[in-house]
């Protein structure tokens, strides 16, 4: 196995006394695309900042090509210049689009002619040819995000890190950015790590999806992501995920085909009591494992669901957990449609 480009070992990150990140081990292979998914506050952005050496972990270490990286080390600048981070709502410098894109090259420094040709080609990649002299602060959100992207890719980094690259742009610009990232990855072998709220985007871009919840990596990023067909009967919206399994949902858009339910939001019970605002499915437990003081259950209802319950909750069902049929219950409002 080749050495990972980034390896994270026993990282903890605390702000004051609040633990925001706790990752025993995580590695990224060179040349691949990684999507970090998870709700707000799950630690995605913090993880990106640690990888980009913008912040230090409280303890633990980050290795680049097997070499320890530290903000205060003498080679920190050299390492930082091998990667770049495009922030959510990227701020552009108060100057022209051209000078924004040329900024990182000038710092290194490159000569004028090579800067010009690199900037021109970056502008072409993001579809902003002709925008050179425009004031960066007067661009639309989509144009600004593409300028920020050009400003990063012009540096041809080994690792391109992006925080919610399509969060504030319209669908068309979002599509352009997705295609561009895939192209950069394919053409230059750039390792890309990006965060997103949008699971469907994560899976469109890569099979390497890492789920973060409360600062922890949830094993198997694809659990409880289920695809189906949208239906509507008597005013109730469903996603039909198997021949006889319908999941009630609140919201959807035209292209919705997938749902995601956080394992924390799925309760299990032998005698469920549930209301119209909840989904209830019958199945049986196929696996129960301890995970950081909780119990991770896999329940087969025809489709597998993962539920994360407390040790106490598990104790109530433990004696018959594998013997009897069991029900899983979750609120309609906890079903994320994408």
């Amino acid at each position, binding site marked *: 196995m080749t050495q990972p480009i980034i390896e994270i070992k026993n990282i903890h990150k605390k702000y004051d006394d609040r633990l925001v990140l706790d990752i025993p081990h995580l590695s990224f292979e060179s040349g691949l695309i990684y999507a970090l998914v998870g709700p707000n506050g799950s630690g995605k952005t913090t993880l990106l900042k640690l990888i980009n050496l913008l912040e230090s972990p409280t303890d633990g270490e980050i290795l680049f090509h097997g070499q320890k990286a530290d903000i205060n080390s003498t080679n920190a600048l050299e390492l930082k210049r091998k990667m770049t981070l*495009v*922030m959510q709502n*990227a*701020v552009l410098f*108060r100057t022209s689009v051209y000078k924004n894109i040329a900024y990182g090259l000038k710092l290194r420094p490159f000569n004028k002619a090579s800067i010009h040709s690199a900037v021109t080609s970056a502008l072409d990649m993001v579809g902003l040819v002709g925008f050179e002299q425009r004031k960066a602060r007067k661009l639309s959100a989509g144009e600004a995000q593409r300028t920020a992207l050009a400003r990063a890719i012009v540096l041809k980094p080994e690792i391109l890190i992006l925080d919610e690259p399509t969060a504030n742009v319209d669908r068309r610009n979002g599509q352009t950015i997705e295609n561009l990232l895939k192209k950069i990855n394919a053409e230059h072998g750039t390792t890309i790590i990006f965060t997103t709220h949008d699971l469907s985007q994560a899976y469109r871009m890569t099979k390497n999806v890492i789920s973060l919840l409360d600062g922890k990596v949830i094993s198997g990023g694809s659990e409880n992501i289920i695809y189906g067909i949208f239906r509507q009967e008597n005013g109730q919206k469903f996603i039909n995920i198997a021949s006889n399994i319908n999941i009630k949902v609140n919201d959807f858009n035209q292209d919705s085909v997938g749902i995601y339910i956080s394992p924390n939001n799925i309760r299990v019970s032998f005698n469920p009591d549930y209301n119209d605002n909840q989904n209830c499915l019958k199945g049986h437990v196929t696996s129960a494992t301890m995970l950081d003081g909780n119990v991770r259950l896999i329940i087969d209802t025809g489709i597998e669901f993962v539920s994360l319950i407390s040790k106490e909750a598990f104790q109530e069902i433990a004696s018959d957990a594998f013997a009897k049929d069991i029900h899983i219950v979750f609120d309609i409002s906890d079903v994320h449609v994408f």
Partner: protein
Amino acid sequence: MNYIINGFIEAFRLIFSFDSEVFSAVFISLKISLISIFLSAVISLPLGFIIATKSFLGKKIAITLINTLMATPTVVVGLMVYTLISRSGPFGMLNLLYTQKAMIIGQVILVIPILVGLAISAIHSVDERVAETAITLGANRRQLIFTIFLEARFGLLAALVSGFGRIIGEVGSAMMLGGNIKYATRTMSTAIALQTSMGEFAIGIALGIILLLVAFLINILFHYFQQK
């Protein structure tokens, strides 16, 4: 009324005939103010940057003090420097009193709080993410500081313009420290004060017009840079 009209006619004659007394005052004013603003900027801009970006004990008190000093009356600064450099003062042996150097010292002391105060707010107004962005794009420490100054350039330029406006028109300290000596330490503002008290309105009006013109030109330049 006639003396006003005659004053204006005479003023324009003085301006267009490049009267030596008028233009000596203009030249001395510009020279002293430009040197003062340059020296103050060298001290104030880094100081403003440090205060704006670093956290230290007593930071709020320091900022309040600077804001208070921004309004220091010019005569108070004049008095302070005068006591230090007068013949019997601690720096009397340097023979600075009634020289352009003394006027520059006074103006620098006068303008430093203004430049520091306005530099702090100019640097505070730079989006916090600018620094982070510069680092992610590979800026080292020196390049980072330069980037922040560049982002704050309009605010900093406005600070310099305000500071220049404050010192080129001030009378109190210039009069006390320079002594209003013709062709040596007489500036536009001290000349206007003197000539008016002597009933010689023409030179006063001529210098007043030029002083306004200078202010006007500086503002035009400022707006030009702001729109770039």
